[in-house]
């Protein structure tokens, strides 16, 4: 076990960065401060006014999390090629989002939606469906927050700290500044995070490249290691039958990433469509940093790293500690620590907004004022974070990982309502609900059938259920070793049920739900009279120099949907 005495330099560097970040977190509340921060759009979306740079940091802070930095290289360390799937996943997701997200941004700004579930509610005229999407979003987000703690925990283990109180202290601080500053806190802090991550990645790349044989030597050692294991699913290249699960995992992860509420929160905070589109062009390049971190899995094999107490998440921090000078390892640890803080804050805000807008205001207090909404959201975000800490401390980390696995499958089921809903309102609301139900049942049934295998030969059954997300096609009676990502199959079931039931239900229930959106809502941009602008809310229809803005509608004449578009 690593001892604290040997890692004091690392700890103090970590603590220093943590202190700086904490001060920034509280100061963020004053950043571009509006007249009142007590509205959900100010607290939960940073005033919907973030430009190119802030949006980039916010989205990269959101997508590339501490858990990614710790768990993904670990996959590569254990499996080689099959663990590299986040690389294609984080490439294909951006062209997909490029088209879809602009429409989402527009419709949400025209109507003032803060959550994807509010959009679904308006599009399909069903508050039940909206609430269902909200519940699925919260369910999928909570374990995602918990796994961020696993990233910090791994760093604490390597520094020789106990897991309990430092983890709790870190999250109390995080909870307080998020409570105080809302989305502005992670937006500001993610700048520090990205600087630390880029520094760490460059340092790592240079260190590995400059060893005697460079990357060539690293891969030679890794190849020999994989050849020496009795496992058949590891190696530097994919086996023929590993390809299906590789591809479906990449595809499914991309779909899930778009649907996670925290991604959409980051998107809604952008100032206009151009900001969003420029960011989607730049974000694939950030995948390179993740790529280098994944390759560190091989570097760890090369350096003969053995995980502390069998906890494979410690592999990457251990490699930093062995390869970097002490102060530099401290910065790398801080990168992981801050890398957990930023997404955890955004995720808890997204979950809290879902609760406030789609459950509290919908079912509990329809007359809630702006200030009350904000208070409820703040308290909900605290609850969510402490829930995550309790899961990690009282239950075990494996439980959080299992839940996150299920969470990915759960969030994918909202695709027909959210993503397809951006293009058509043809699907019937009850068919969507039935599809989600069928997809969840199918997904959970398949996950239940998957055992966790491990041990030296990679074939010993460690646990019988919920052990992974690759479902063997042999379960269908097919004579193949290939397996497929559960989420993709569950989503197919969902889409099939929704598509088959829609014409049937349309025959019975001709009116369906009323669609409250109009075609032009999906292409509106900043400056259009129908788009709600913060400058308008803050300055009362004048621009920054006090002139009345020609394109801004006075508040009271803001678009209110007077016409209801019936579907067909």
């Amino acid at each position: 076990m690593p001892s604290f005495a040997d890692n004091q330099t690392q700890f103090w560097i970590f603590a220093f960065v943590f202190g700086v970040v904490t001060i920034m977190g509280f100061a963020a509340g004053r950043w571009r401060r509006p007249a009142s921060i007590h509205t959900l759009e100010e607290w939960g979306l940073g005033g919907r006014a973030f430009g190119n740079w802030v949006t980039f940091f916010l989205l990269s802070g959101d997508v590339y999390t501490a858990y990614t930095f710790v768990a993904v290289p670990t996959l590569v360390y254990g499996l080689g090629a099959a663990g590299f799937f986040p690389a294609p996943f984080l490439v294909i997701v951006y062209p997909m989002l490029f088209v879809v997200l602009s429409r989402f941004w527009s419709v949400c700004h025209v109507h003032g939606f803060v959550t994807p579930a509010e959009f679904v509610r308006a599009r399909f005229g069903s508050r039940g469906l909206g609430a269902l999407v909200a519940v699925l979003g919260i369910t999928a987000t909570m374990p995602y927050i918990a796994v961020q703690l696993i990233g910090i925990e791994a760093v604490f283990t390597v520094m020789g700290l106990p897991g309990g109180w430092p983890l709790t202290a870190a999250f109390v601080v995080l909870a307080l500044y998020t409570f105080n500053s809302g989305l502005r806190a992670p937006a500001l802090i993610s700048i520090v995070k990205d600087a630390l991550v880029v520094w760490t990645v460059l340092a790592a790349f240079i260190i590995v490249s400059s060893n005697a044989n460079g990357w060539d030597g690293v891969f030679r050692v890794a190849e020999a290691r994989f050849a020496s294991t009795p496992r058949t699913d590891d190696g530097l290249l994919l086996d023929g039958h590993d390809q299906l699960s590789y591809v479906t995992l990449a595809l499914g992860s991309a779909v899930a990433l778009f649907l996670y509420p925290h991604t959409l929160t980051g998107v809604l905070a952008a100032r206009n469509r151009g900001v969003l589109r420029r960011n989607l062009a730049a974000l694939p390049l950030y995948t390179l940093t993740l790529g280098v971190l994944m390759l560190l899995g091989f570097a760890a094999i090369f350096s003969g790293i053995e995980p502390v107490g069998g906890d494979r998440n410690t592999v990457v921090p251990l490699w930093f500690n062995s390869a970097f000078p002490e102060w530099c390892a401290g910065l790398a640890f801080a990168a992981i620590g801050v890398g957990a803080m930023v997404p955890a804050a955004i995720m808890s805000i997204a979950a809290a907004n879902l609760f406030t807008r789609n459950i509290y205001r919908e079912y509990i207090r329809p007359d809630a004022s702006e200030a009350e909404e904000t208070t409820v959201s703040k308290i909900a975000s605290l609850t969510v974070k402490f829930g995550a800490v309790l899961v990690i401390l009282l239950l075990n980390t494996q439980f959080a990982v299992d839940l996150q696995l299920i969470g990915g499958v759960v969030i994918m089921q909202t695709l027909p309502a959210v993503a397809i809903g951006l293009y058509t309102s043809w699907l019937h609301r009850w068919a969507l609900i039935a599809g989600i139900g069928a997809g969840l049942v199918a997904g959970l049934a398949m996950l239940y059938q998957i055992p966790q295998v491990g041990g030296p030969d990679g074939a010993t059954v460690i646990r019988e259920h919920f052990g992974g997300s690759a479902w063997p096609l042999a379960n269908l009676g097919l004579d193949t070793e290939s397996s497929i990502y559960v989420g993709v199959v569950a989503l197919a079931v969902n889409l099939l049920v929704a598509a088959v039931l829609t014409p049937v239900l349309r025959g019975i229930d001709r009116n369906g739900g009323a669609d409250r959106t109009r075609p032009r809502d999906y292409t509106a941009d900043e400056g259009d009279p129908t788009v709600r602008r913060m400058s308008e809310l803050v300055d009362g229809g004048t621009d920054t120099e006090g002139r009345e803005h020609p394109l801004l509608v006075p508040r009271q004449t803001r678009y209110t949907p007077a016409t209801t578009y019936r579907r067909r």
Partner: protein
Amino acid sequence: MADDFYGRAPYSRSARSSGSRSRSRPDRYVHPDGRTGTADEERPDSSPWHWLLWVPIVIPLMPVLYNDMNPRFLGLPFYYWSQLAFAGLASLVITVVHLATKDR
């Protein structure tokens, strides 16, 4: 009517605070059909350029294309460096499509 639908419409806030009188006050953005909105009604957001986006989506999903050790680059097997290079490809394609469709 809108308020019935939303329980409380998100945009009714200002109407409540400034009284209902202001709601009925005519404004210069009203359309002949009674709705407020932009002059150019619907800007199409589809474009033939969007087909180009399939390239960085489909290629990374075809491991047969890159599941190989050679050629190597900086000592990295083809499998690894090519998948990282796809990030550059995606960035390039999205930039081209963005610039081509920006002005609609």
